């Protein structure tokens, strides 16, 4: 069953088309990652799912939790906006209680204690929000989104600005939600997180869907055209090797994208001529690379077309 079904939805603000004829299906119990450059329509899409925005009248519609309802914010959906979203002057426990009551929860106090405990925030329960660090308020924000055990949780950039320890805590909490059957949609700029955590990845660019599917299916479309190498040698310059289309230099490692019909073996021998090859790995392009290929200014026109309306299990 699909928790969210978006069908040919368009949203315009004045002359600006924020989302263009978008279709998307989010299966129950999955983690769905939204990626895309800033201003490409991610937040607009999330807000439409939240019913904060309404799609332009016309063709399709949005079905959330099987309901087509056009108004009324849903108590079964939790939401974490990007970065902020808490009253600075209120105490942590008060904010959480207020948000939980707004979701229709009558006695949220035990749940609040449990969650504060779990995320290591119990001692801040009576502190004002303004005294919290960024990471801590992000965790409080997260609690407010999941406290009332919604069926669908929407997180806008949940991991941004967190140190590795807190990022791990939150990631564990998100995975735990999925284990309990909660569907999670989150947007992120961290491609590694998206690769590791998401069952499905959706990329929107300039209001259009450009990627949608599992990581495997997305990478498959690009084939094994990437080589990860580490070559020791003076003045090593991979760009000059015939058949290398693009170099992503990570310092110790370099990612080479091969032109079509380039033989990896001849590339290896070319590399060996230029230095000592320490690492040579034939691989599929990373999500990072795919993202950049699509969104880089003057991006190549060779993006494989995306199949619209992919049906998920």
């Amino acid at each position, binding site marked *: 069953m699909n928790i969210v079904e978006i069908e040919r939805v368009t949203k315009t603000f004045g002359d600006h088309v924020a989302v263009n004829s978008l279709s998307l299906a989010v299966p129950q119990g999955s983690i769905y990652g939204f990626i895309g450059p800033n201003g490409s329509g991610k937040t607009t899409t999330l807000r439409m799912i*939240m019913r*904060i925005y309404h799609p332009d009248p016309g063709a399709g519609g949005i079905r959330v939790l099987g309901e087509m309802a056009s108004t009324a914010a849903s108590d079964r959906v939790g939401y974490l*906006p990007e970065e902020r979203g808490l009253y600075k002057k209120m105490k942590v426990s008060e904010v959480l209680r207020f948000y939980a009551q707004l979701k229709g929860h009558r006695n949220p106090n035990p749940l609040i204690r449990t969650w504060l405990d779990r995320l290591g925030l119990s001692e801040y329960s009576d502190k004002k929000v303004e005294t919290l660090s960024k990471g801590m308020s992000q965790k409080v924000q997260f609690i407010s989104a999941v406290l009332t055990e919604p069926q669908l949780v929407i997180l806008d950039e949940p991991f941004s600005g967190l140190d590795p320890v807190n990022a791990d805590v939150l990631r564990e909490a998100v995975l735990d939600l999925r284990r309990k059957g909660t569907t999670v949609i989150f947007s992120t700029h961290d491609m590694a997180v998206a690769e590791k955590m998401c069952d499905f990845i959706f990329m929107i660019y300039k209001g259009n869907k450009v990627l949608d599917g599992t990581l495997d299916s997305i990478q498959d479309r690009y084939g094994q055209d990437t080589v990860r190498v580490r070559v020791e040698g003076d003045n090593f310059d991979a760009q000059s090797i015939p058949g290398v289309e693009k170099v992503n230099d990570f310092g110790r490692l370099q990612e080479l994208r091969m032109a079509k019909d380039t033989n990896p073996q001849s590339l290896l021998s070319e590399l060996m001529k230029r230095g000592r090859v320490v690492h040579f790995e034939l691989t599929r392009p990373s999500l990072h690379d795919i993202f950049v290929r699509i969104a880089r200014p003057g991006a190549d026109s060779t993006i494989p077309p995306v199949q619209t309306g992919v049906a998920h299990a």
Partner: protein
Amino acid sequence: MHKTIIVAIREYMVSVRTKAFLIGLLMMPLMMGGGFIVGALMQGRVDTKDKRIAVADYTGRLFDTLEAAARQRNNVAIFQGEGAARKQILPRFVIERVDTGGADMQRLSLQLSDRIRKGELMAFVLIGPNVIDTGKNPSQAMLNYYSNTPTYDDARQWITGIVNEQVQQLRLEGAAFDPKVVRQLTQRVPVGNLGLVKMDAAGNIISAVETNQVATFLVPFAMMFLMFMVIMATTTPLLNSTLEEKTQRIAEVLLASIPPFQLMVGKLLGIVGVSLTMTAVYLIGAYSALSRAGYAQYFPWQSVWWFVGFLSLAVLMYGSIFIAIGAAVSDMKEAQSMMTPVMLLVVSPMFVLQNVIREPGSTLSLAMSLFPPATPMLMIIRQAVPPGIPVWQPLLGIALVLLASLACVFAAGRIFRVGILMQGKGAKISEMFRWALRG
């Protein structure tokens, strides 16, 4: 509906617990009582340095009276208290005679002006030669007071009084009237300022009592001032709180749980609660102060419910406007410029206050008090000033304010819905109107 109440309770609790609320609560008694306290402290701290006044008396018949009056004043009138507590509270006036024989008037006044510039004199007075008998040449019948401190008019008024009294006396004597008889004949008739005569249940006629000027002016004025203060103290913070919800992205979280209109109404109800709390504190305080002072009969019981009704509607009306502004702008600076016209509306009753208190029954007063932004404050005044107004007028006023409030809340709801999620630059007034009209 349930969620609206939750929002209202939060708004109320947060507002009531802020320092701003407490300060606002203390503000009004401080402002009203502060004047008295400062006045009491300042008393006896006036400048009691001698003031030298030169007098050029061209009649030659008035200087002695002035000097005698000054001596009398300097010995008695400028002191307060008895015995050891006797203390000078006003400056002495030292009168100096100017020889009018030699120089002409023009030159003499220049000399005296120069002495004032040098600080030797505070002022000088020219008494024209024909002051007593104006028949010959009225242009010479002047009393001119020269100084470079025109705002200090104690000396001028004192001299005016003394000279006029003496001149009158001399003229009467000149015409062979007995000043004593004249004074008796021209005595003014005392006027009593009374309310109306009533008849009690037993048929006895109760004679009218002297009207208490202070109470009839002070009570309506205090009520209007109270309403103004409460409106200002409670509605303007709504702008800030809405702006915070917008810029801190709290609105997104809230709108994920509650529709925008309900959210806004919740905030408004919370603030109505705050304003009623404030009012209750003041009214109870005022009543206990009045009854302690023995003036309990002046407490305007009959107006309290009207006051509560008008205040609630005014808070809804202005509160919704401030919410709309808070939702439409992107920072406090933009908000300030939009607030100015709204503030003008809030203070508009002040412009006609004088006229309305003086003539609460006039057509202008009626018309102004039916102009919804001004209705709450002006109706309360017109009701509180005797003889009051027919009951259909406040009822019509309530109905009109209710309509205006609903219109404001409705329009604000539309502006709120669009504006609260807009980041980046704030909206122009024209855009706000378009949102309000088109939805």
